[in-house]
């Protein structure tokens, strides 16, 4: 072990000397295979972590996303508060950036160091949501459970693997680079080890797309090769978000839940080999869009053109069972079922059969779980696309309201509601 260290130190010294000589002999920059790749320069991009709502929901998706699901201990209300306060501290530090503390070298370093001594914000958002089990397993929390929150149940085409389903808490971590999401996850695992136990995680990416000359940005493609997100509601339209995404006083939810939203996570495996062996015309009829442009079938040039289903009642242009037509039939009343999608593509490895294990880490947000995702998915049940998809994991969660200011902490509204409930109970008993 000492020998190894000696060699490493010697090697470092030698490398330094060689580098110095090279610099002296040849002023022009030389490039080595092990040079760090040149970054995009976006490390200083920062998302606010304070607000009425949590960040990472209407925030534009950066390249890298991850869902990490945890089991929580929090047996008592004060444990819950401790957990949420500590989580808030980590979120503030990790998303806003800063220098990590240094300790005596005889101690393990307090930070993994994988992004260096100074943590850059890198567009990181950390969005915290609670699963149904978190409420169900705690009698003092059960009465405060959001009304529509339930454990995700199987849809006909699902093959749910329990090792990648459900959880008491999910963190959605999104950033420009994967190192940042992994760093944040490791930080939280380390700092909350007494309260949270990691259950499963899934990472994903979205390809970065340069804006076109007129400033429009086209949607990224999923692993089926189609643009995904074309008809997503406009997340910059506050009125629309209020209606589709955010729970408010009129939603019939517990008072503490105002400002929150329902999160749905689905790990949807794509059978990509089989899909790639499907005729192009059939692929387009299954999805309902032109593969190259993303335009609706039969009308329009771009993905932003709207399909005219009223002029196509028999589905001659867009089949009645095409994915986009079932998902959003654009009939009167169906705007009630709109959801805000925020998916990432994932690529994991190889299945036992030697096929690629890849697909979509589907994430969406809505003010009403039943009218939102569940209704949309029920309309999709039996769609021709199912032959190429297998949902295998995920769950339903309730995303907490935001951290309103620097003195606030995540989930304070819930902790206060617990305290009010218990004081009400004790005064009733008196």
């Amino acid at each position, binding site marked *: 072990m000492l020998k190894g260290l000696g060699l490493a130190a010697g090697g470092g010294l030698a490398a330094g000397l060689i580098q110095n000589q090279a610099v002296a002999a040849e002023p022009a920059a030389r490039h080595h295979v092990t040079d760090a790749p040149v970054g995009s320069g976006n490390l200083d991009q920062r998302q606010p972590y304070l607000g009425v709502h949590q960040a990472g929901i209407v925030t534009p998706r950066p390249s890298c996303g991850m869902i990490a699901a945890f089991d929580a201990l929090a047996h008592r209300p004060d444990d819950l508060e401790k957990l949420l306060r500590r989580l808030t501290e980590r979120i503030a530090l990790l998303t806003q950036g800063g220098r990590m503390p*240094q300790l005596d070298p005889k101690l393990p370093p307090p930070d993994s160091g994988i992004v260096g001594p100074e943590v850059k914000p890198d567009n990181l958002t950390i969005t915290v949501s609670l699963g149904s089990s978190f409420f169900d*397993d705690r009698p003092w929390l059960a009465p405060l459970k959001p009304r529509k929150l339930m454990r995700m149940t199987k849809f006909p085409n699902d093959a749910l693997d329990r090792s990648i389903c459900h959880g008491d808490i999910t963190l959605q971590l999104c950033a420009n680079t994967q190192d940042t999401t992994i760093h944040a996850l490791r930080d939280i695992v380390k700092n909350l*080890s007494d309260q949270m136990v990691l259950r499963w995680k899934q990472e994903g990416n979205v390809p970065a797309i340069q804006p076109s000359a007129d400033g429009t940005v086209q949607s990224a493609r999923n692993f089926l090769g189609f643009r995904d997100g074309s008809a997503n509601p406009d997340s910059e339209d506050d009125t629309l978000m209020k209606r589709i995404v955010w729970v408010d006083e009129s939603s019939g939810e517990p008072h503490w839940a105002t400002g929150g939203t329902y999160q749905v996570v689905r790990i949807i495996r794509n059978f990509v080999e089989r899909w790639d062996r499907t005729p192009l015309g059939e692929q387009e009829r299954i999805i309902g869009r032109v593969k190259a442009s993303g335009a609706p079938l039969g009308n329009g040039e771009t993905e932003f053109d709207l399909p005219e289903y009223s002029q196509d009642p028999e589905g001659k242009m867009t089949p009645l069972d095409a994915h986009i037509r079932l998902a959003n039939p654009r009939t009167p009343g169906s705007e009630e079922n709109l959801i805000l999608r925020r998916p990432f593509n994932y690529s994991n490895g190889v299945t036992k059969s030697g096929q690629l294990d890849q697909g979509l880490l589907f994430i969406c947000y809505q003010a009403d779980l039943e009218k939102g995702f569940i209704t949309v998915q029920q309309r999709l049940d039996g769609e021709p696309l199912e032959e190429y998809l297998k949902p295998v994991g995920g769950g339903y969660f309730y995303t907490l309201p935001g951290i309103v200011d620097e003195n606030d902490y995540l989930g304070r509204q819930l902790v206060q509601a617990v305290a009010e409930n218990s004081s009400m109970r004790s005064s009733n008993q008196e």
Partner: protein
Amino acid sequence: MHMKHLFAASALAVLLAGPVHAEGEPSLDLVQPIADYKIYVSERLQTLVADTTAFTDAIKAGDIDKAKALFAPTRINYEAVEPIAELFSDLDASIDSRADDYEQGEKDPAFPGFHRLEYGLWEQNSTEGLAPIADKLLADVKELDKRISDLTLPPEKVVGGAAALMEEVAATKISGEEDRYSHTDLWDFKGNFDGSRKIFDLVRPLIEEKEGEFVTKVSGNFDTVETTLEKYKSGDGYETYDKLSEDDRKVLAAAVNTLAEDLSTLRGKLGLD
């Protein structure tokens, strides 16, 4: 210039470290705890040799029921002193490796030790062909006892062992994959926790005053583990791993992870590198 920089940085680190991390040179006070630990290890090893003799005798006599009954209580003493046993990696591999460590798994002729015997007893429900493996195990355990009795225990290995035991549980035991044929994992947990706590208790007086909060937190987590395991006591031992409830598994996992985090600072707190 470069060196000066380095010194400045470490001076800063010391400043930043604050009151909790006032590490010093390894204390002479460690002499007694290490000597006491050596006695603990010797006693455990003596029991291990005696128990392994009885266990392997039962196998060679073809007494499956007796061999099965002796398997977990025999192993528990090995698990308790594992960080020291692991100083001899050849013996650790020979005594306690798992089928995963061999390319052909259980069928691999090189698969030895406790878990090979466990596989034969539970999966094949037979002692056929196990005699040479049993003989080798007993020889290895005796060899381990001999080598350790000749050994001066390195303080950093002893103190580091408290965390190392928790790392093992956290990485590959909490899932119930250690004793996958017999499901006697809770016995092993008990051995690992006892071994870790023994080390902590021996050095505790050295840090109690300066690190009161730390000591309270660590003993609190050891207590949590003990109370949780206590629920699964059955006769002289423990129920099978499948009886462990999901809730209790979570409690154990969180306690193990936190003990691993906290005990990873024990060496530094005692001034050991």
